[in-house]
């Protein structure tokens, strides 16, 4: 269909969004070309100096970026796997099905900043319940203070918080699947596993891609969890890009530089997400 009315549908939203964003984004780009910091707040012009610094003299940013990639890919895969299993579980008729469905949704609805404080007490190595219970087995993992375990802890919290999102999307997808292919598969004598591999999974592929991409976008912003749980420590072992940008911007008030970081980050994210989504489409659908 093609009517001139189409603009009347699209433009209000588009222009509201652009209207609200054009200044911030333009300002950010301009800011990235300035040396605005605590002491000299102002839009001077220093050319691409900030970008030069970023590309030649800031391994911490790149390290944090790769760490972020690792964390978000891991958490999103885990969320996908767990979310899918849970969705499959309550898809069928089990007892208290509805209760479980509600239960699995709740973590998503908690404010991360607040919930993570609770998690910090939860993993507190001498006052929290986790190590208290584990001490029965004579172990006391340093959840927040070991370089590697701290990452695991962050992953656990992220998985807890956001698996429900994946779960909801996938469950809704499952519930909307047509019945015929399953009947056909049953007639052909396919067992539950083969049914999953050959029927459920392919049918769910498009939904999965959408869900994974959206979660990757959200997961890449992971910050509250890091801030509250470990402040990026121990060392820099849990610093992620957005946390690093946050530190440079709102802690050290190097606005010019943090704008350059942000802009670079944005470009990288848009490119990599586009590539990832193309890859996923190839991987999940063409097969």
């Amino acid at each position, binding site marked *: 269909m093609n009517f001139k009315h189409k603009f009347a549908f699209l433009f209000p939203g588009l222009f509201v969004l652009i209207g609200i964003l054009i200044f911030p984004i333009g300002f950010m780009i301009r800011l990235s070309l300035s040396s605005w910091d*605590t002491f000299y707040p102002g839009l001077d012009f220093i050319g691409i100096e900030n970008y030069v610094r970023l590309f030649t003299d800031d391994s911490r940013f790149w390290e944090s970026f790769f760490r972020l990639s690792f964390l978000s890919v891991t958490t999103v895969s885990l969320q996908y796997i767990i979310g899918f299993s849970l969705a499959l579980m309550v898809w069928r008729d089990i007892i208290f099905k509805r209760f479980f469905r509600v239960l699995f949704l709740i973590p998503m609805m908690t404010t991360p900043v607040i919930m993570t404080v609770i998690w910090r007490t939860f993993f507190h*190595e*001498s006052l929290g319940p986790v*190590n208290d219970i584990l001490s029965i087995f004579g172990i006391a993992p340093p959840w927040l203070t070991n*370089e590697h375990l701290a990452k695991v802890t962050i992953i656990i919290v992220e998985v807890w918080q956001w698996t429900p999102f994946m779960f909801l999307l996938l469950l809704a997808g499952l519930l909307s699947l047509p019945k015929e292919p399953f009947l056909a598969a049953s007639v052909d004598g396919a067992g539950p596993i083969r049914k999953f591999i050959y029927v459920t999974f392919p049918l769910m592929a498009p939904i999965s891609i959408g869900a994974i991409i959206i979660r990757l976008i959200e997961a890449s912003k992971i910050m509250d969890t890091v801030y509250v749980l470990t402040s990026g*420590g121990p060392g820099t*072992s849990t610093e992620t890009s957005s946390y690093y940008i946050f530190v440079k911007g*709102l802690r050290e*008030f*190097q606005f010019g530089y943090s704008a350059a970081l942000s802009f670079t980050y944005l470009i990288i994210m848009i490119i990599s997400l586009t590539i990832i989504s193309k890859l996923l489409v190839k991987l999940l659908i063409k097969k």
Partner: protein
Amino acid sequence: MTLKSYTGGLLVAMLIFAQGAYADKWSDQFPHIKNTGDIPGACSYEATSKKDYSGKTLTISTHAVPVMGEPTALHAEQFSKLTGATVDVVHSPAGDLYSKAMVPFQAGQAPYDIVFGFSNFIRDWMQYLAPVPDKYVNMPQMQDVTKAHQGVASWDGQMYQFPVDGDRHYLKYRKDVIDNPEYQKKYKADTGRTLKVPTTWKEYGEIAAYFNGWDWDNDGELEYGSAEVMKKDDLMYAAFFSRSASYSKNPRTPGGFYFDLETMEPLINNPGFVEALGDWVEATKYVPPGGINFGLGDEINSFGGGQTLFSFSWDDAFVAAMEDGSPIKNKVGAAPLPGAERVWNREDGSWDIGHNQAPYIVWGWAVGVAGKSTNQDMAFDYLCFFANGANHRADIAIGRFGVNPFKKSDFDPQIYIDHQGWDPLIAKSYAATIVGMEEFNTNRVFPLRVPGVFQFTSAVAVGTSKALAGQLSPQEALDEVAAEWNKILDRVGKDVVREAYAVGVKLEDNIN
């Protein structure tokens, strides 16, 4: 404060200050000051009640409750009752106070009349703050403030922050352990050394390691050596400077602790600091499980809850331990920070042997009035009221308020003995410890107060936490910090930093 401690306090007050507490019309109306009643002064209840600010609104950005946030709100409520002003208080976590005020400042706005923060924000904030008017600087209430804290609140002689709190780092220890003859014997037998309050960081480490990981107070729980702020956030570097001061603050080499004032060469990676960081890495072995991720709150919970033998940062852990209801009330002691058996001499490039001790007058709560505020009179009156004699005396007794002594009159041990039920010995050692470092010691370290201070301290936090996590050796870690400091210097401008740093060095070198 629970009702019980009110009554308890009231009884004590009735006995000692019978005349003062009796028939004071202000303490009837404001139970907060029941212990003392109104104390006369320019900003007393009596004086404040004569002002009329009705119809005006005062806005305050302060810390989260309870620490500093609760007294802010409490005094706001009282101030409002007395003057008719509307007072809006907004609370933020400590880490966000700087940006909460700085973002509007930089955008040319003044949404808050009063901004709470830390004393080391002064250089970044002062261009947006109104200087404290002479009227307040000269009043007796201010003259009672220790010299060190007047210095902390001022920039080159001009006061920008209104003193409402005093902060310093000192050593807290479990008196019941250190003074226990049995443990003293046992320690001697096991190690050949004497068990006493440590005077060097090495001793601190040895004793803490010895008392780590076993149930020395027989409560069924394990106890540990030391609780310290090791979490990589805005506070950990302060703990590091506390540990480094005695190794690097050499009274014979004035002209800079953090930088060499002449060359602006960072000193952060000299052997003194490296030695201190080495000690600190060692300390990860005698902190409680998870201790390497302790923030100040954890430290307070840990020492205040009786979990560790030592702790050495702000007052809070000590006050928490000494509060009514604490399981270790009157079982703790206060002492100056440990020293070192040698101190680095950067001019000779060698160690000066001999005991050296340098107190760290750490930054603490500080509060300023926005330069663009249209209610500056009211704002200063509020702050003055906040810190008036009666309020201050009541505030320092409540651990969770985070308000600590900073007035000369606070160092009378009798206050703590009478009002808070402290053991006289403890009260005396506490008062002596504090007054000693603030009034008499001349080898003090003051917080770094230069433009972009957060960049410098954040670099320290990153570097030292890498060392604590074992990612880097102490030398490597501090070399990295020094390199980062040089970069920041280049960015911010060496001369700008030098100019600001000179102001702090003057304090350290006792030049007025």
